[in-house]
Structures are given as C-alpha cells and as structure tokens.
C-alpha cells in the first residue's frame, strides 16, 4: 500500500499519455464510477479490427487517470478480441500495486469503459 503512489503512477498522472480526443473515432464510450462520480471517455480509431489510435479523457484520482493513461499505451496495436480478453489481473500487473476492492473500481474504470465500447459490456469487469 505504501507504494500506491509509485513514481510510474505519479508520472502517468502528471503527464498522461493519449489524453484528449480523436477526430471521428470509430468507437466512443463514456461511463462513471457510481461510487465516486469519477468519469472517463475512451475513443478508438480502428483499422479493420486493430486499434490504431486511442485517446482518453475524464476526471478522477491518480489511480484512475494513471491506469487510463497506461491502458491507452497498452491497447494501441491490439485487436478488439485482444481487448475483450483483458481482465482485472492485467490491470493490476500493469499498475504493479496492490489495491483494495473500493480503489479497484478506480483502477478498472478505464478498462470497463474501453470494454463497454468494444463489446457493449454493461458492467464492471470481474
């Protein structure tokens, strides 16, 4: 827990990657975390079923913003099927920190949003 705010997380929080909006995104999805009101928008540009560009926007805590920033880097170049297969553990590995069930929702918000966009998934990934 003491390294919840490791340098890589604070870096992504301070200098988020792919923050902003795309022109004419192929996929656009927005959702909120009902327990805290944070929100994230994810936009994807596709070539066939491969993600060629990605952007996120939103407001939230360092965990949710860093997680979104890192996630955009990870999924650029993935196919939609690869994105569909991402799960909680992928995010935890990506962040490299331990996290409780409440904060987990912050960490997973960006994945939830991107999966909802890709798949129409209506729920938190479990």
């Amino acid at each position, binding site marked *: 827990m003491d390294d919840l705010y490791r340098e890589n997380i604070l870096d992504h929080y301070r200098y988020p990657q792919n923050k902003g909006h795309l022109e004419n995104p192929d996929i656009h999805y927005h959702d909120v975390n009902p327990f*805290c009101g944070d929100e994230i928008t994810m936009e994807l540009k596709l070539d066939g079923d491969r993600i060629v560009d990605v952007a996120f926007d939103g407001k939230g805590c360092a965990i949710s913003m860093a997680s979104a920033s890192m996630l955009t880097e990870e999924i650029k170049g993935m196919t939609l099927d690869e994105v569909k297969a991402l799960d909680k553990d992928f995010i935890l590995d990506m962040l490299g920190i331990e996290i409780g*069930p*409440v904060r987990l929702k912050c960490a997973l918000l960006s994945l939830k949003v991107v999966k909802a966009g890709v798949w129409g998934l*209506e*729920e938190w990934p479990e």
Partner: protein
Amino acid sequence: MPSITEIRNDFPILQQEIHGHPLAFLDSAASSQKPVQVIEAMDQYYRTTHANVHRGVHTLSENATAAYENARLRLARFLNAASPREIIFTRNATESLNLVAYSWGRTNLSAGDEVLITEMEHHSNIVPWQLVCEMTGATLRFVPITSRGELDFEALDDLLTERTKLFAFTAMSNVLGTINPVAELVEQAHAVGAIAVVDGAQSVPHLATDVQALDADFLALSSHKMLGPTGVGALYGKRALLEAMPPFLGGGDMIREVKMTGSSWNDLPYKFEAGTPAIAEVIGLGAAVDYLNDLDMDWVATHEREITTYAWEQIHQVEGVRVLGPGPDRRGGLLAFVLGDIHPHDVAAVLDMEGIAVRAGHHCAQPIHDHYGISATTRASFYVYNTKAEVDRFVAALYKTKEIFEF
C-alpha cells in the same frame, strides 16, 4: 460426520436452564439459534474492521467492503446462483418478497392479470401480493390444499393459465411442514409464461438449494432462520429480470448519478441496496453459510429427517394429538399440532415450565388455519442441534399438559 455434542457446544444459548430444566429449543422454524462462529464473526468485525462500505478508500472501509462482498459471494455459491450480482441483501425474507411485489409487480401487472399463490403461504407471501393486486388491479388466486395438507395439483392445473403472470409459493410450509416440488412448480409456471417466486424462508436453512437447477426466477430467504443474525435476508433474482426492473427503495449506493432533474441507477446488485447495508449482519450470514457448508447440507437434511420421523412416531402415541400436514417422509423438520381442545398458548406455556421452547399461534399463516377451522396450533421445530432426547422430553411434557388441563 459432526457429532451432535460438538455441534451443541457451538451454541452458547443451549447451555442454559429454563425454569430449572436444560433448555430444549424446539422453535427454530421461528428463528434459529446462532453458533459462536457467527456471533464471533460479527464481534470481531466490530472490534477490528467496521467502516461504511463501497465509498471509502481507507483501509477499514476497503476491508469492510471486501468482507461484505465476500459474504455475498459465499451465499451466491451456497444457492448456486450464476453470479453474486443476483444476490440482493434485504432485511428479511419478507422484504425480499415485497421487493419483487413493488418493483416487478407494479411494472408488470395490470387489470386482467392474475397472481397465483397457495393456501399454505406465510403472511409474508400473501400480503405483498394482496397489496400489489390492489395497486395494479390484478386478481389474486389461491391454490387450495388437499386433505393431506399438500397442494391440490389438479386445481393448480386449472388455476395456472395464460392470465397468470406470477406464481409465488413456499418451498416448505411453516405450518404443515409440506415440502413442495419446487422445480416442477417452476416449470409449470414457465409453461404458461408466468414467473416463479419461491419463498425459501423455511427450505434454505434445511435443504440444499440450487436456484439454477430449480430454475426459480426469484427466491427469498432470511438469515435468522439459517443460523445467521437477525436484520438481514436476501433475494435471489435472475439477472435479466433484475436488470429490467425499476429500483424499489431510493437513496445512497443504489444510484449511478443523481441530478436535480432525475437519477440513473447503479449496476446490480447495488441498484436494489439503498442506503448503508446491514454490513455486520451480512458478514454474520456469511459465517452461517460457512457453518452449514461445514456440516454439509445433506447431513443437515438427514439429521432432521431422523428427528422428525422419531418425533412423528412419539407424538402419535399421545392420545388427542392431531398433527397437521403430511407424513414424515414428505415434510421438513417441524410438527404443528393440536392437543384436544387445549389452547396452544397453554400447551406452550406448560412446556416452557419444563424448559421446552415451542411456538403457539397461527405462525403468521391464518388462511391455512382457517382451512382447518382452527385459530392456532402448537409447533415444535427441529434443527441441527436437536436430539431425540429432547423429543422425549417434549412428548413427556405433553402428557403433563393433559394432566393439568384434565384432558
């Protein structure tokens, strides 16, 4: 196989005397006793972990949330629900049934529709339907029972029609003891396009329950009857149904966004859990589920059948006793009876003087008592901690009652 002595030692309340006699608690159908494992789970929770759940990022709140949600998961597995999202925590089985009546019922019922229930229902599975029928103009119908105290299946065939939108019935009667064929009844309901609501308040504590095998649309239960604390119950509901339903209670936790102009709803199960939940109680219920799993529900059912069969045989030795409902092979672990014309309150009061706790009254099931033309019965009910020796004391006390009342 657990030893009954070991089990009894887990229940502190059983170690006491009442009116100079060891307590024989034969009132578990009203509310069961709690093992130390359950009591201590809550005690420890308050001593080490308590904080409000879901919205706190500090350690206690994270831990409380994890414990609360983990208990939901264990209950979901206990019932073999497809997902923990299908488990909604309520105050008791009564609230679970009301939730279905208010949320599903008010949306899906209208004049010309019928709601079907049975004559052997507990008031908690009657009154919510009376209320929602009054609100919506739907008609409430009752499946009658046979002289053996079982559902009249022929009448059921006639009553269950394409007008029937919802069929609600108990899996086990709290007066007759009758165990209903839940899977068949659900199938019959589905065949006419009705949803099936199962009152599992009496069955879940005593018989292994598999909601997917039963194909029940909804199932209600109470923690306090299954070794868990008071103040919590649950509603199992099929996800697609729950998703389509409007919320019932409004407030914190059940919302996605609240604007002054209107609100949207949280994901399942939270959509139906408004306000601060019964956190410690849910955790206690989780401990009760663990305890029952450790005992093994098959063992529980076998143990109760043994006691009940023995009690059935013994009580029929007592002249003037009339037990309501079917034989011991078709009933759960309880016997409701009359003893001549001695009022059940008086029977229960004399038994209490002997340290034996039984219930007397209409057991919140007046229609079935009306059916038999009586206003009350005395009921002895059995659970994991009861013994044949307690049955013997119970029967002996019935003789004493007859003596006092010169019957």
